[in-house]
């Protein structure tokens, strides 16, 4: 019992403390591939440290929503961490509280509050970015839902731990067309939901072209730090769902000791690094899509995951 609590705490700590590093490595590698030097991989930590020590400025026109939003955005990825396999391949005790649909809902709650917070202020760019994020989100929603349907159809459950065990069962299941198409669809979904390049430019500084970034323009000090940190954690959590549940269900701790769980950290870090490399290649070789082309991008993701479902449905 104590061990499970410790393992759970370790899981949360890994996501909490390593997510800025993931963002730092991603930025650094991207700069290197574009033959620049780039900031240190520790830059996100420094940013967070700096922001936490600054004063916060709040608009007197804003309501409690604006003040509550950073905390919601910060806390929702931590909740999700309790539900998904980050380090262990056996369920920890909160794992059966919610399934992958629940994971989607909890993450969407953070997005919902971020949108409300952005609309709450007088800044004209906030509502603009908020409505764009909603557009991307409602196009991504059917993809999410079909991915979950297909997963539950294949594995007989939507609890992440059971799904993950199902893919690891045999090579025939792992290499089936359904699984390949699901992985492709989910990868496109991560690009859209994480605000990565074909959909949104995470490093852009032009307010008019922003999608995700402009929602946190009004925040300063602690609020800005929490929004940023929440964003980093959301990306890492999505990566963990993608890697540990769908793509590589191996390398997680199966032993019930704390050292076994701690030993899983380098394996997971390696997998995340490989995914970061894939993201860097995608981000450096593609251009940002025009706003109304996003529906094509997510339409492709939708078709891919529906195709995954029908290959499973008509399996003889």
């Amino acid at each position, binding site marked *: 019992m104590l061990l499970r609590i410790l393992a759970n705490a370790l899981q949360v700590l890994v996501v909490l403390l390593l997510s800025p590093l993931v963002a730092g490595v991603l930025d650094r590698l991207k700069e290197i591939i574009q033959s620049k030097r780039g900031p240190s991989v520790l830059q996100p930590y420094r940013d967070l440290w700096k922001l936490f020590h600054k004063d916060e400025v709040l608009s007197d026109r804003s309501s409690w929503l604006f003040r509550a939003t950073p905390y919601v955005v910060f806390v929702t990825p931590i909740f999700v961490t309790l539900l998904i396999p980050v380090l262990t391949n056996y369920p920890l005790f909160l794992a059966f509280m919610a399934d992958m649909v629940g994971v989607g809902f909890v993450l969407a709650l953070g997005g919902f509050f971020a949108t409300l917070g952005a609309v709450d202020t007088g800044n004209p760019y906030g509502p603009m970015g908020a409505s764009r994020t909603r557009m991307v989100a409602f196009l991504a929603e059917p993809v999410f839902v079909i991915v979950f349907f297909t997963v539950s159809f294949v594995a007989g459950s939507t609890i992440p731990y059971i799904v993950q065990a199902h893919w690891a069962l045999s090579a*025939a299941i792992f290499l*089936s067309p359904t699984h*390949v198409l699901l992985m492709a669809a989910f990868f496109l979904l991560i690009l859209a939901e994480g605000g990565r390049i074909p959909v949104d430019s995470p490093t852009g500084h032009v307010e008019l072209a922003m999608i995700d970034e402009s929602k946190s323009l009004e925040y300063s000090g602690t609020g800005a730090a929490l929004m940023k940190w929440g964003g980093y954690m959301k990306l890492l959590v999505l990566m963990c769902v993608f890697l540990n549940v769908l793509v590589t269900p191996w390398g997680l701790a199966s032993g019930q000791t704390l050292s076994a769980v701690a030993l899983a950290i380098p394996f997971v870090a390696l997998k995340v690094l490989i995914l970061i490399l894939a993201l860097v290649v995608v981000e450096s070789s593609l251009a940002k899509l025009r706003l109304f082309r996003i529906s094509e991008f997510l*339409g492709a993701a939708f078709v891919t995951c529906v195709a995954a479902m029908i*290959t499973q449905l008509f399996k*003889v």
Partner: protein
Amino acid sequence: MSATTVTSTLASLNSLVGGLFLLTAFAMVATRQTRGCLQLFIAQSLLLAASAFLLGAEYHTPHLYGVGIVDLISKPILVPWILNRTLTREVYAKREIDQVLNIPTSLLIALAFAVFAYFLTRPLLDAVAPQFRGANVPIGFAALLLGAYTLAVRREAVPMLLGILAMENGAFFVGILLARDLPFIIELAVASDGLIMVFVVGILVRKIQHRLGSTRIGELATLREGSASPPSPLPHDGSIAPERQNPKAV
């Protein structure tokens, strides 16, 4: 024991190839760029060859290796080479492909085609060994239908040509599993036919582009009246030919 594991590994690798094949077929419907379309076609042909080799290893038929080798030489190498030789750079420089329907609608229709292919091939699957049922037959059929669909909605010459070739890919993808012992001469004939078709269409497209300055098939809606004059900037009588005057006239 080891024989069955080899069989199951080959079968699962083949189904992986099938999944990627379907993905390329969808991507060919979704892509907007001529060059992207060509690259997807090359990837699809490579997957077809991979599937032929895997099935050849499974059924111990050297014939399927032959199919794989012919495919590997003709489609990913010779087709792009011929197209590059006959067409100018301008054809590839265009990023946007003209289409009758927009891409999200096309994708949904493509999806309906895929479902239809699965329904259609259901009776055929009895002839197939159980471990290969998921991949080749329905997915190849879907690729065939999607190729035909590309042919119908695209208005650019080169992607239309690639649509025909993708149809052929799909038909072969079904064929290498259903008709494993077809005479080899047929494969050779089909492959050389395909190359000749690429060559002829390539020259045709070059002429069209030379004449109209674009390769939009959709604009070729009017016939020029009178004698078949050689291509020249001005017709014999000095008047302006109808299609020059108004290329968009129907």
